[in-house]
């Protein structure tokens, strides 16, 4: 096993967790939400390879709201490409009534991540240290 880079003072940088779709597939909705919120509350940026389902997004918003507290946690910033149903789903998927839900998703603490620009194909985000 190769030696990991020496762990530096975390306050010197921003930690980014890139989570594969495979890893997420083994988790329940609540485990996914917990993992995201725990990471974000520590000040990390969480990047999901395949994103969340609409129902999970809805629950993420709900759980986030219950955890917001003054001077401690102000909530999340989430970014995905805005999708249009018609442009996104392939003809066959639409025919089968399937909706493509895999979408790269970036989640971070609301006070550390700021969206500079967003359209269907490009997201520009500014991440700051705590």
């Amino acid at each position, binding site marked *: 096993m190769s030696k990991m880079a020496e762990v530096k003072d975390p306050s010197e940088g921003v930690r980014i967790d890139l989570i594969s779709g495979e890893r997420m597939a083994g988790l329940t909705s609540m485990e996914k939400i917990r993992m995201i919120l725990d990471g974000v509350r520590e000040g990390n940026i969480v990047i999901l390879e395949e994103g969340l389902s609409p*129902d999970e997004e809805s629950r993420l918003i709900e759980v986030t709201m219950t955890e917001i507290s003054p001077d401690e946690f102000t909530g999340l910033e989430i970014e995905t490409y805005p999708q249009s149903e018609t442009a996104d789903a392939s003809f066959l998927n639409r025919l089968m009534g399937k909706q493509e839900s895999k979408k790269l998703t970036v989640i971070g603490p609301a006070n550390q991540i700021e969206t500079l620009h967003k359209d269907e194909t490009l997201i520009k985000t500014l991440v700051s240290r705590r």
Partner: protein
Amino acid sequence: MGLLTGLKSSISRAASTLFSEEEPKRIGIYGPPNAGKTTLANRIARDWTEHGDAIGPESHVPHETRRARRKENVEIERDGKTVTIDVVDTPGVTTKVDYTEFLEHDMEKDDAVRRSREATEGVAEAMHWLREDVDGVIYVLDSSTDPFTQVNTMLIGIIESQDLPVLILANKIDLDDSSVQRIKNAFPQHETTPVSALEGDNMDEVYDKIAEYFG
């Protein structure tokens, strides 16, 4: 519970199940904070209910509505037919609430903190209603602002995933920097109807669409 009372309540339960198709649909008014949801809800209530009572107070300060409020049996008449709906005005949905933003609106810290706590409860409540308790959605957007926000993307996705009928309104067309086309471009899979809930502009078309989508 007495036998007679019990019998009465089970009959009324059975009757309500039997006639459930006749029950008015619950239409949730959703959107980001400050899109004009309560102004629209009040406009609908004033136009179509006997006493014309407002559903809730309107304000320029975000998160004025911090509880979902339901106005029952709003009867909208279109082409000789009556469409009866319950209008549910919901708190604006967001993924973040920072009490310091309220301080900019001349609010004391205690009031701002209380408002932010109530706002977070309200957003959670709105999400719960959306998953469990609404039959259709009127999605209100401020047409003078950028519609490509994550909250809009997620909410429209959530609504679509539940197969709820959704009417998108481009509100505040009375403002100089309003752009209905920008909203149409953001949600090409849905029809967008322009409106000024404040001025009452184009409300006739909105009522036509409500009857068409939710009737």
